């Protein structure tokens, strides 16, 4: 075993650990991140006033906070309907901030679900507001948090399309379709993007490949028509 020396000190009054002052912060960036995380958890544990925090079950989830957040979400959706997109974005962001500040020892599964709901809303609000890069970033996160939901890929694909990344948009739609082959909107968008791509390539993205027997059938049909 190798002994590692870490440049950290403990302050008993604030009950927090920190980097010693003689080291550069940029060099110990990763350690600093871990220290912050540890301090947050420790602070919550102290303020909980119990030896062991409650088990993170869905039952012990803070219902009061959930109701508050539901309200925030509702009002954001209302702003969306009134086409006040910047306001909606703000409200979704505030909701997400509240979500971040939930007690850390709560059920993460529930927290994550809540977070995803806000993320979906914000991605859509960004998109409608024309902030396609932000919309893409949110959708990209959605694609990794809720990968099996076709709509995540639909959102990402749409943002990619607006950003001009046609090939990426195509593969987004295709990936979405792999989770639900009959998704109407995705099929529509895929068709649309293929048209766009062939337009960008001078009508030639898919060079038409016809097999010989098919040509014969076509010719036969044409002859029948003439007769």
């Amino acid at each position, binding site marked *: 075993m190798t002994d590692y020396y870490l440049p950290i000190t403990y302050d008993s009054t604030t009950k927090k650990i920190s980097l010693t002052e003689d080291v550069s912060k940029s060099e110990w960036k*990763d350690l600093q991140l871990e220290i912050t995380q540890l301090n947050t958890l420790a602070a919550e544990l102290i303020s909980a006033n119990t030896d062991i925090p409650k088990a993170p079950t869905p039952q012990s989830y803070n219902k009061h906070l959930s109701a508050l957040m539901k309200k925030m979400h509702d009002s954001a959706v209302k702003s969306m309907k009134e086409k006040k997109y910047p306001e909606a974005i703000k409200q979704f962001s505030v909701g997400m901030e509240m979500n971040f500040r939930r007690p850390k020892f709560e059920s993460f*599964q529930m927290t*994550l*679900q809540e977070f*995803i709901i806000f993320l979906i809303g914000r991605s859509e609000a960004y998109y409608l507001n024309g902030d396609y890069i932000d919309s893409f970033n949110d959708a990209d996160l959605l*694609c*990794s*948090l*809720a*990968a*099996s*939901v076709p709509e*995540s890929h639909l959102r990402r694909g749409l943002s990619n399309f607006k950003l*001009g990344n046609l*090939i990426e948009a*195509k*593969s987004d739609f*295709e*990936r979405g*379709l*792999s*989770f639900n082959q009959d998704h109407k909107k995705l099929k529509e968008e895929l068709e649309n993007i293929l048209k766009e791509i062939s337009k*960008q*390539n*001078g*009508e*030639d*993205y*898919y*060079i*038409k*490949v*016809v*097999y*010989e*027997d098919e*040509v014969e059938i076509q010719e036969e049909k044409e002859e029948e028509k003439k007769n």
Partner: protein
Amino acid sequence: MGDSRYAYDENAQVWPYFVLSILIVITIPLFYSYIANFFAGSQRAKEDDKDYIKKKFDNYKTPIDKNLKKFESGAKKSKVFSRKFFVLCVLIVLISAVVQYAVSTSGGGFSSGGFDPFEILDISSSATEKEIKSHYRKLSLKFHPDKISRDTSEADKKELESRFVLINKAYKALTDEVTRANYEKYGHPDGPQQVTHGIALPKWFVEGQYSWILTLFYAASFVLLLPISVSLWWNNVKSYTKAGIHVDTAANFVSKLMNNNPAEVVKINTILKWISESKEFQLLYPNDSAENFYFLIQDYINRNFLEINSKDLDKTLRIVSMVPILIDGLIEIAATFRSNDIVSKAIETNKCIIQAVNPTVSKKYHHFLQLPYVELDKIDKKIECYTLEKFFNLADFEQKNFLNIQDDNKFQEIIEIGKKFPIIKLISAEFKVPGEKIVTPSSHAHLVLKILIKSPAQKGQIILNKESLIEEETLESLKNPFKIVSEQPPIPPTNAPFFPIKNRQHNGWYCSLILQRDNKLSDLPARITNLSFQNLNKDNKQFLNDGNLIVGTFKLQLQATTPPTIGEYHFRCNLKSLDYFGNDLDFPIKMKVEDPATLETQKTIFSDDEDEDEEENEDDSDFEQEQDTEESDFTDINTDTEDEG
């Protein structure tokens, strides 16, 4: 022979052969590898593609042409007159000298140490006692000392006498009991002979005043040369990975991938930063920092050559020439992490290096920077044209205006090179289990791609014979399904006027298979190395009407077996070019795993034997139950992920 138990090669009869065999053992493999190397190089430029290459490296001179030439002459002196060639020459001269020496000294002939009574008596080994006796009498009469005439010289006399003794001995060996036993046991009628060890070196060389030469030779080879060469070899093995990158570099890549923050997007610049931390660069230029290397590479891909002085430019080219190898090492490591994002970004970075193009700066116009004379600032950005295929749809004057190049010769060269740009199109893709019509569970499958290489100038509807695309399954193809792939000609060199190494061996496409479920690599990516580019030489009319359009094949062996449960599995296949922007392929592909047992049970329904039927049905139901449990496991996982959403 004296007191020594060793028989030295005093007459210089054996040692030339000894030396000769040593020389030949060295020369023949060296010669073979030299010849093989020479032909491997020329084979790359095969007859079909010669025209293709010639047209590619035409008149265009890059702004760094002088430095590129210098690099080239420094890196590759000459293929024919390499160092190996001189070693070979020296060896061959030595061999001929030794042969000549051996021939000139072999006149004396060998005194055979063996004793063969049959030969001495000049009879066949199957001779009867009577024949032996009569031959002996004849010979002893001829060689008897009393019969020798007095005129013969003293020396001749002696020889004849010894011959007579020998004849006597031989006769005794064949007739007398004791001598015969001696002959059979020790190979000599007189009993055991003194055992000698032949040394193929003259005596003066071992025991005389020149013995120090031999001692020195032994000391040099066993005390110095052997340990040094072994340690050098081992050091080399120890400090470089199989992919040819330094172990420190590989360790750096691994730590980057391990600590990769999924929230941070890996960009081309990120990859270049990792690359510039490589140990290889530090070993070459110990005084420079990783940051410095990074800036040099950035200058190269941005084509900021005017600001760099010539000496730095040489350094840049040296560094840049090594980047593809490093990227390849990175790809290999990232593939084991199954990280699709990093693998595809690394390939993208490789394109930047090969073409000296920075797509983050050039936005959507980087496809055109691969053509000669084209400059980003001059491109008319009002025209919405981002791909070469679209470019060839424009009228002549539009093309000229778009690239802002009015010189007709230059323009013609651009068009020529643009036409030879390999665009890749997918004809068909399927998963195949050798010897099966369907994809069976838990079996070894491979992905079969049928690919068409076309020029961006070729357009329209082509007609293909469907049957010609179907591969017949013969015993041969079942044995090695990949033969058809390797039989295609190797991919011709890339048109890369800025990259310092011409005729790069490492080009082509990387084919990776990605699981749609988690967007990770399902297999290690494989490189497409063999593909015919012959379609590029056809003009549009030939292209459309030619019945002999060449459709390429690529097969990717899946490392893992197909899933054990029946169902549809979704993949995404990605063909990414290592050399060019704008000729990648990206398409979804479905693997439908079917159960061969269902076909079999249908057959058994018609079978006469009822008992057997029941048994088989039982077996089947067991099998289905097993599948059910496995499927329920799978759905469990699925619902979990849906819960999250």
